[in-house]
């Protein structure tokens, strides 16, 4: 099976007043038709990785890599025009909070059809029909009515399902989900995840699931990368998370409360400065 995405030695740097800051420090991974989880704490570089793949790092940020390939396209040399054809059509991204990631002054319908019309020459009526169908697929009741609503008129869970519909309507092969449920109520998190999972599996897409929630990721993904300070410290199959060896992963696992076995005190993570300097683990397949 060929990979959808191959990344080797990816770096994202930002110049600051006191030298450069490296948000991502040379990571390598590949993505097949699988669900790949990227886990790490705030500032570990996981979101930057997602954005770097779509070349959405704005100046003055710099993205470098030895290799960055999506299908037949070399992302490193791709022009902005080529990137625009890839974005949305081949790889899409869902962001954290639909309250901010949907345009407040455009109707849901026009935002979804826009995503489709950008990449396909279809009539407006046809685009509208497919948008309604897509809203139906993300389990939105009365999609015809929702098409005419503005983002402030829908709930958070609904907003995120609208985002999913919008990002999947041009049939991309890769979906990057950047903390897609972190801003949602716990009660709707699972519902949104299930809908996303079903669509991604049905369409045989590759999913990059970025999260800080190790439990969620281990239940939901096939393979997990654990990032720390801009590097991958450990790669493991989701089912074998308990076999993880890296002290950071073990620390993360130990700091999760367990209802079945309550402990008087949760372990606090003891950080070893050596973790920062350890070479990045390759997650290429």
């Amino acid at each position, binding site marked *: 099976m060929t990979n959808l995405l191959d990344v080797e030695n990816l770096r994202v740097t930002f110049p600051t007043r006191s030298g450069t800051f490296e948000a991502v420090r040379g990571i390598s991974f590949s993505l097949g038709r699988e669900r790949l989880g990227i886990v790490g704490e705030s500032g570990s570089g996981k979101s930057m990785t997602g954005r770097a793949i*779509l070349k959405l790092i704005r100046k003055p940020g710099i993205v470098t890599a030895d290799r960055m390939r999506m299908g037949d396209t070399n992302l490193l040399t791709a022009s902005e025009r080529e990137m*625009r054809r890839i974005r949305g059509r081949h790889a899409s991204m869902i962001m954290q909070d639909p309250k901010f990631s949907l*345009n*407040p002054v455009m109707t849901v319908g026009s935002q979804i059809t826009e995503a489709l019309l*950008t990449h396909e020459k279809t009539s407006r009526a046809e685009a509208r029909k497919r948008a309604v169908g897509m809203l139906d697929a993300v389990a939105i009741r009365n999609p015809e009515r929702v098409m005419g609503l*503005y983002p*402030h008129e829908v709930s958070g869970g609904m907003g995120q399902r609208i985002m999913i519909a*919008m990002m999947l309507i041009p049939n991309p092969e890769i979906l990057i989900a950047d903390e897609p449920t972190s801003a949602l109520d716990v009660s709707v998190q699972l519902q949104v995840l299930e809908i996303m999972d079903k669509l991604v599996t049905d369409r045989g897409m590759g999913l990059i699931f970025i999260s800080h929630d190790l439990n969620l990721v281990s239940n939901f993904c096939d393979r997990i990368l654990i990032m720390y300070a801009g590097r991958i410290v450990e790669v493991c199959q989701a089912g074998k998370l308990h076999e993880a060896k890296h002290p950071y992963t073990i620390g993360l696992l130990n700091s999760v409360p367990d209802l079945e076995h309550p402990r008087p005190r949760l372990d606090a993570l003891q950080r070893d400065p050596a973790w920062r300097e350890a070479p990045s683990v390759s997650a290429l397949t």
Partner: protein
Amino acid sequence: MLTVAVTLLGLLFVTFMIGRVMPIDPVLAVIGERATQAQYDEVFLELGLDKPLITQFAIYVNDVLHGDFGTSIRTGKLVSEDIGRVFPATLELATLGTLIGVFLGVPLGVLAAVYRGRWIDQVARFVGLIGYSMPIFWLGLMGLLIFYGILGWVAGPGRLGVFYQGLVPERSGLLLLDSLLAGDWTVFKDAFSHIILPASLLGYYSLAYISRMTRSFMLEQLNSEYITTARVKGLSEWTVIWRHAFRNIRIQLITVIALAYANLLEGSVLTEIIFAWPGIGQYITTSLLSNDMNSVLGGTVVIGTIFVALNIFSDLLYRFFDPRAK
């Protein structure tokens, strides 16, 4: 609607009080200083100055509501007639000035935000800085000197050359519009070459303001998450900027433009004087210098009312453009 009524009543109250506390004897202003005491008393009663203040105010409000601002001492005509004559001149100038400011200032502000820190941003900053800091009378005189005096590209002070006066029937009082309606191109051209310099000057001042505000509104929007969403969809940068970001600043821009417009309608006194423009700013100033309080207060009330009306108008547009305000 109630707040509007209260605002307008407050405005009338303030202008009324100004008229009363000014150290100008309204009776003397009418009859002159050499009148006899008997004449003085007669006019004093005629003006209703013997009645209590509150009654005087009620009479004043009633008069104003009927469009009666009294008679101008300077021109001898009804103040409402005078204003009807001078206001279109200001309206025409301010409207053209605002149009120039909007059509150049908004794109300049958007570009400055998109290319933040690049040369176009620096140019916009420099243009804005001059607009903010140069006194308008100096720029006006320099403009006249260069474009009228030396280059001769535009006509000099006034609204219309002597030859062309009274050639087209007055319909709206706006010369450009009237001459167009009459189909008289020579008059239109002459009126245009008279108005273009002062209008550009006023336009430049609102451009400075509008472009700075547009820039900061746009910067705020361009950093929002929904802009990333739009880029993720694969939209072109042009679409991202105009269809997504700009659509979100229209609401704020309306307020800014309405303010800039109101500013030009009320505050172009210096420009009107330099360009001998027979508008309301000049009317009020001249009236003030000849102690003609009826005209001053009448003009002030009209300008205040326009200010309030523009605010109502921008509120209405708000509802139209912002789905959240419904």
